[in-house]
């Protein structure tokens, strides 16, 4: 479980986040949705400590992350996996070395055990036979799966995914969504997904948080989102005609 209490952040006098309070539940896919520039990525970066919030607290289970020293933060971070929007794979390393990297840095496994874990993770994301290729030699969808394999290599307790479907075709997006959802259940992780893809919301959104103008505007699930009377959420969700049709049919 991750709890965010009264987190605020401003850049150059412009308020990006205002008093955000959220509890991300364990074993569930928690989705943060919102328009571009609404502050959802900043919120995620504040949560994992890549950006220091101006005020507020972040708790990883019972540990107050915002008050930990550098060493203690690094220890908590070994329990975090993150899938970045641009994948953030290391260009100079092969796929196998990329996935093995966190294991080499933090685990006490020997080479054989690490290789086994890497093979397992790559197989879990349905990628085989690419171990010795470089990130530039595989497709965007495959890179996303490698990034997911690397994120789960250390068996994290918390998984953060920043726009995991950006730049992917609809079919590959569904595969990635399903993988994240399945892996969350298998490992009983607390998963936070930042997205503005309504397909993801409908497919895997067990808990959905709508961020608007830097504030938490709405909280619910993928069922209640279709019948919301919240005007701003409604404008965001029903911007697509497909969603309008879906809402009419559900009513």
């Amino acid at each position, binding site marked *: 479980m991750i709890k965010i209490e009264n987190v605020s952040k401003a850049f150059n006098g412009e308020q990006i986040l205002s008093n955000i309070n959220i509890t991300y539940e364990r074993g569930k896919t928690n989705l943060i949705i919102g328009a571009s520039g609404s502050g959802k990525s900043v919120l995620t970066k504040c949560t994992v400590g890549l950006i220091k919030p101006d005020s507020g607290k972040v708790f990883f289970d019972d540990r107050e992350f915002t008050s930990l020293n550098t060493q203690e933060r690094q220890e908590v971070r070994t329990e975090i996996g993150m899938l970045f929007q641009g994948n953030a794979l290391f260009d100079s390393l092969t796929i196998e070395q990329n996935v093995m990297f966190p294991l*080499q840095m933090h685990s006490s496994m020997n080479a054989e055990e690490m290789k086994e874990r890497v093979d397992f993770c790559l197989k879990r994301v349905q990628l085989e036979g690419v171990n010795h290729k470089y990130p530039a030699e595989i497709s965007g969808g495959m890179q996303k799966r490698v990034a997911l394999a690397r994120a789960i290599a250390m068996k994290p307790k918390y998984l953060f995914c920043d726009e995991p479907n950006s730049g992917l075709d609809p079919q590959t997006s569904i595969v990635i969504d399903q993988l994240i959802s399945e892996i969350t259940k298998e490992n009983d992780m607390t998963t936070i997904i930042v997205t503005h893809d309504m397909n993801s919301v409908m497919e895997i959104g067990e808990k959905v948080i709508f961020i608007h103008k830097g504030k938490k505007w709405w909280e619910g699930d993928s069922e209640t989102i279709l019948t919301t009377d919240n005007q701003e959420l409604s404008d965001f969700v029903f911007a697509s005609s497909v969603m309008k049709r879906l809402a009419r049919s559900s009513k």
Partner: protein
Amino acid sequence: MNLLSHMGQFSILMARTFKKPEKMKIFYRQLMFEIDSLGIGSLGIIAIISFFMGAVITIQTASNIDSALIPAYTVGFTVRQSMILEFAPTIIALILAGKVGSNIASEIGTMRVSEQIDALEIMGINSASYLILPKITAAMLINPFLVIISMFIGMAGGYLVSWGTGMIPTSEYIYGLEYDFKVFSVYYAVIKTIFFAFIITAVPSYYGYFTKGGSLAVGAASTKAVVASSIIILIINYILTQLLLV
């Protein structure tokens, strides 16, 4: 940003950089890679520049000596002093600031804008230490050897010119090289080189690490890194010369 904020941010970055590496085995692997990349990879350009510089100093000195009172061995002496005291440590450092510095700033800058540095931090890795420490250590270890090689190649360039053109007898050239030789000159060059090695790796790392934006910002960081490290090298060169030779 003003100079003081740059210095403050640079000091904080260096404090994070000079931490014990998380895994010594991985640090050693990175160190060997950087020694090969930054050091051995620069050997070719250093050899070419040093050879021609030695040759040119020989011709210029020989052609400017038109008094019978100045002995011919002065040419060898001048080549040796120029190569050891200034050319090998300082000019090679300025050349490496361009070659190695732009490479480091753009490599680390690209890692910053493509979130690879954020990925390292999320994995609980001290990204500054992981990325920068091997580069600084490698340059401080390998650059003194590069500079000593540069000295020898420069003097060999001068010898080949004196032999090929007959401007001065080779025996006079050799005598000039040996004349009034002080070992301290080499120590002075090596001390300067170690300081310069730190500058040409740490300053570009700083500019790369704090890159903000996209590919244009990476290019700008690379340019700023080369300009800043070149200026700092010249200032430190003056200070060290004042401290060590006067």
